């Protein structure tokens, strides 16, 4: 009984502690599905334009999945409309946009 109680208390404590710790910046962001990206040379323009957006801390491009992960500064927000416009200006087609960590739609 005492051991079980201790485990519950420990679990609660960990939960509280996780909520109090600062979340790494990589967890703030969005994932954009982009069609038309066949190579890194072609996609460089998209990288450059996204990095210029206010609030964007970094990004990662996955050519096979056709996805760009956009990492935001803590507390920063970027409008979906602005993201879509940047993808279009880079010469590609934006599809769905979802938060980082959200499940992919089947």
């Amino acid at each position, binding site marked *: 009984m005492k051991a079980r109680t201790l485990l519950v208390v420990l679990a609660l404590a960990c939960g509280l502690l996780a909520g109090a710790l600062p979340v790494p910046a990589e967890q703030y962001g969005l994932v954009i599905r982009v*069609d*038309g990206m*066949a*190579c*890194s*040379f072609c996609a460089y*323009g998209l990288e450059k*334009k996204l990095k210029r957006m206010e609030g964007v801390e970094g990004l990662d491009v996955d050519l096979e999945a056709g996805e760009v992960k956009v990492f935001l500064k803590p507390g920063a927000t970027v409008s979906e409309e602005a993201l879509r416009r940047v993808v279009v*200006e880079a*010469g590609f087609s934006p599809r769905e946009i979802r938060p980082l960590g959200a499940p992919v739609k089947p």
Partner: protein
Amino acid sequence: MLLVAGAMVSVSGSAAAHEPIFGLGPHTIYQGGVGLEVEAARESAGEERIRALHTEILYGVTPDLSITASVPLLRKEEGKRSRAGLGDTVFRAKWRFWRRDALGTQKQLALVAGVKLPTGDNAGPVRLGSGSVDFLAVFTGGYESRRWYSFGDVGIRINTEANGIRRGNRFFADVAGGIRPWLTGYWEPDLVLLVEANLEHERRTRVKGALQEDTGGTVVAFSPGLLLSYRNVMFKAGVQFPVLQRLNGDQERRGPFYAVAVEWHL
């Protein structure tokens, strides 16, 4: 076929991503993007040799409209005579009017219009320019995916008269296929191998209205090449081998055409 400074190299080369080395592809550059390409080329026919160093700058007006300026420095040798200097400058605009994007693939169609200005010296026995303002119109299309590439273009160069000489109009068509043998990630070097087939047909030159028999003809060439890139820098290299030459009258047969280039998107 008598080489005219910049006659071929003014058509080839297009500073915009994975494209044929000797043909013209449909790619543009991103809106507001600036690209810079430096290309060294060498072509010959008998005792006539041209070495060219092209500097080309590309700007993306919109995602589907790019403009290009190409300035050549030439060294031309005709037997024991030689001359070096500025060749004819070419301005081009490319309008990509159709595009279909899917996961990892892009299909494109574009129209290209260009003008060649007589900035090369047309005087003397070894001419660096044609002396004429010439025009270019091309229809081009392409498919690219993570593994495969294919391109095709057809076009015409319309030559005007200068100092009583009018070089025959040139018709050309190119097809190209390519493969990315190793699929690499965004932050890794990327290699594409290309092979092109190029067709050129040039009509006879007129001098003061009279057709010159030893001018013009048809050349078919086979051109392997490679494109090696890392993010915003691309190295290109290719060799064009003439495999069929039906030249009018008595002309020197064309030798291989070598081209290497570096393209950088700022």
